[in-house]
């Protein structure tokens, strides 16, 4: 009898075992792939771009593999919900060796300790000083560098040349001029200015009067200076009625709104140039630097870095990959078609984007841009800001009331986490 029990128990264990083994075959495959032919396989994960961009990345990786015959790069494209996937994989210990990290998410990720500090890998040859400093600073914490920015984009003013000619107006250089020009351009369902009422796009305006949106890692956008600075954005929409957000004209994004000729001006980034060329090839447009707010030049900069997983078992090879991708040669290939702007001054100079007709104003912005990153709590702060800012933008409630309430909510969320 006992024998039967033992056999049935062992059989069920066997069954259970095979179920579990089924889950982990993937793991075994990866390990053996790494050993074959003394090659190290480094996994690189990122979100997908358009096909041309993807081809450029593959070209860069092929160059790298040619120079480092002992390293194989396995590219994993995460199509959607990049950060959710990445966090889950890192928690499960299945994270890639090298991956993309947006500056906006960087501080919180760095704080958890899952990102490898890169300072000790850096050699003199790598020339860290060559990077645009504000962009590099976004990936530093306590003077330790955790990632090297692969590219960036700033915002610039995109304007519709045909509409400007018809209305007989000049390209605005100050915010006041922009508001005036908008009045002349608004007619027949076309708005002068397309706005994205969200913090990622309004941050530099919010801080233009000396206020700060984030203070001591807490929300501070309910302060007088910030409210006063943002009021013109609200007024242009509700009083002048010369601006609109994309959904108000049935567009899906600022670029779409501009391309469909429903807005004569939008503030967009580098991504908009290939988008317009592909989707609206006949559009006659130009770019200019963002109009000055209260006499000060300002714009946003968005940047993404390559970072290394602290739990990676192939750190040497991973560093080689990062070193190549953010090095002069790799970056030149990657940014050669202008889908992204190079973060290295020397590469930017070599590719000559500063003199490019369309990209020149984007490059010029790098100097004075505010990098979209600020402390570990920016995601919470942004979420609450966006939620209430839109209600003020639509005229449902006064701006000061909306922002003060949002600030309170953001800080209560932050407070209860500590």
């Amino acid at each position, binding site marked *: *009898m006992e024998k*039967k*029990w033992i056999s*049935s128990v062992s*059989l*069920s264990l066997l*069954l*259970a075992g095979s*179920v579990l083994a089924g889950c982990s075959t993937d793991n075994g495959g990866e390990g053996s792939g790494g050993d074959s032919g003394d090659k190290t396989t480094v996994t690189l994960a990122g979100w997908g771009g358009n096909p041309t961009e993807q081809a450029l990345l593959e070209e860069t990786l092929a160059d790298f593999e040619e120079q480092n015959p002992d390293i194989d790069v396995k590219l994993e494209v995460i199509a959607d919900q990049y*950060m*959710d996937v990445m*966090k*889950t994989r*890192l*928690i499960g210990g299945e994270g890639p060796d090298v991956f993309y990290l947006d500056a906006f998410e960087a501080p*919180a*990720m760095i*704080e*958890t*300790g*899952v990102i490898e500090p890169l300072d000790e890998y850096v050699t003199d040859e790598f020339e860290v000083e060559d990077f645009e400093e504000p962009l590099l600073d976004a990936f530093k914490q306590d003077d330790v560098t955790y990632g090297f920015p692969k590219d960036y984009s700033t915002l610039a003013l995109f304007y519709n040349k045909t509409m400007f000619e018809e209305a007989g107006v000049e390209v605005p250089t100050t915010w006041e001029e922009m508001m005036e020009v908008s009045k002349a351009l608004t007619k027949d369902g076309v708005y002068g200015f397309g706005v994205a009422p969200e913090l990622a796009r309004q941050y530099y305006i919010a801080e233009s009067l000396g206020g700060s949106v984030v203070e001591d890692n807490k929300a501070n956008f309910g302060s007088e200076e910030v409210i006063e600075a943002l009021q013109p954005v609200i007024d242009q929409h509700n009083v002048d009625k010369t601006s609109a*957000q994309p*959904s*108000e*004209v*049935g567009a899906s994004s600022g670029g779409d709104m501009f391309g469909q000729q429903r807005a004569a001006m939008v503030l967009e980034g580098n991504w908009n140039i290939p988008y317009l060329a592909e989707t609206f090839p006949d559009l006659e447009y130009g770019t200019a630097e963002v109009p000055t707010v209260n006499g000060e030049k300002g714009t946003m900069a968005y940047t993404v870095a390559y970072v290394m997983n602290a739990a990676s078992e192939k750190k040497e090879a991973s560093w080689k990959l990062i070193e190549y991708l953010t090095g002069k040669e790799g970056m030149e290939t990657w940014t050669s078609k202008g889908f992204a702007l190079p973060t290295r001054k020397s590469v930017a100079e070599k590719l000559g984007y500063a003199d490019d007709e369309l990209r020149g104003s984007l490059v010029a912005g790098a100097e004075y841009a505010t990098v979209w990153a600020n402390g*570990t709590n920016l*995601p*919470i702060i942004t*979420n609450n800001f*966006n*939620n*209430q800012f*839109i*209600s003020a933008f*639509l005229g*449902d409630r006064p701006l000061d009331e909306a922002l003060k309430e949002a600030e309170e*909510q953001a800080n*209560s*969320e932050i407070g*209860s*986490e500590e």
Partner: protein
Amino acid sequence: MNRKYSKRSLQEAGQGYFFMSPTIFVLLIFILGPIFYAIFLSFNNVRLLGETSFDFVGLANYERVFDDRRAGIALWNTFKYVIIVVPCQTILAIVLAATLNAGMKGEKFFRIIYFLPTLTSSAVLTLIFMWMYNREGLVNFGLEKIGLPTYDFIGDPNVALTAIMIMNIWATAPFFMVIYLAALQDIPDSLYEAAELDGAGPIRKFWSITVPHLKPITSFVVIMSVIGTFQLFDQSYIFSGGSGGPDNSTLTVVLLIYQYAFKSMDTMGYAAAIAFVLAIVILVSTLIQRKLSKEENLY
């Protein structure tokens, strides 16, 4: 150890459990395990990324639910959604089923047509509806043609939730219609014949025979749709791009749970606590519903 069971019956029980072991195993690992783990999480301050840590905090996560203004908004939105969608889709389902059961021509054709929305994946459906709800989309075009005001369904906080409600009523009602159709086949024809002899018209027959006979099915349908609507997630997620905006108007409880679990760091425990509050709310409303429907028995 008592000797109540003979060796034989023990052996038989052992065999039985052995044969069930794969199922039991799956249930434990994939259903019971996660539930208990979630209960455990809800009493802890959980940090998963980096150095994993669990700090026992007692009921602090549950207390936080009641202080959190967004949790309040999410509950209120979900509640509004349930209160409006459940009756609407139930009534629509009965009406659709009754018309399909009336013996008209082309019944089968209409059955298929009516059932199509339920077959469509909710993600695809939401994307299609977002096109129709576009500022210059089909819905606004129609409204304008008949001289009604038009709306920015996606961008305006005042109408965004209503837009999702309409979409869901349209998509889920046919599913319950099929259940009602099956129930309608069970009502004996003799009842209708007797009613006809007594001089009842079609409307009277509907109210006096069809509706009372459908009562048990109705309580099933209502419970299922209450549970389903409380768990609204995908539509509002796609509609708002995951933010619950504009102005928290499409923020539902499950969407909030998702945001706390995956979007912000170290709030997994709090997310688990909200999930339990939601489970309790659903349980209570189901119990109330059962109590109400039991009070008036048909037979």
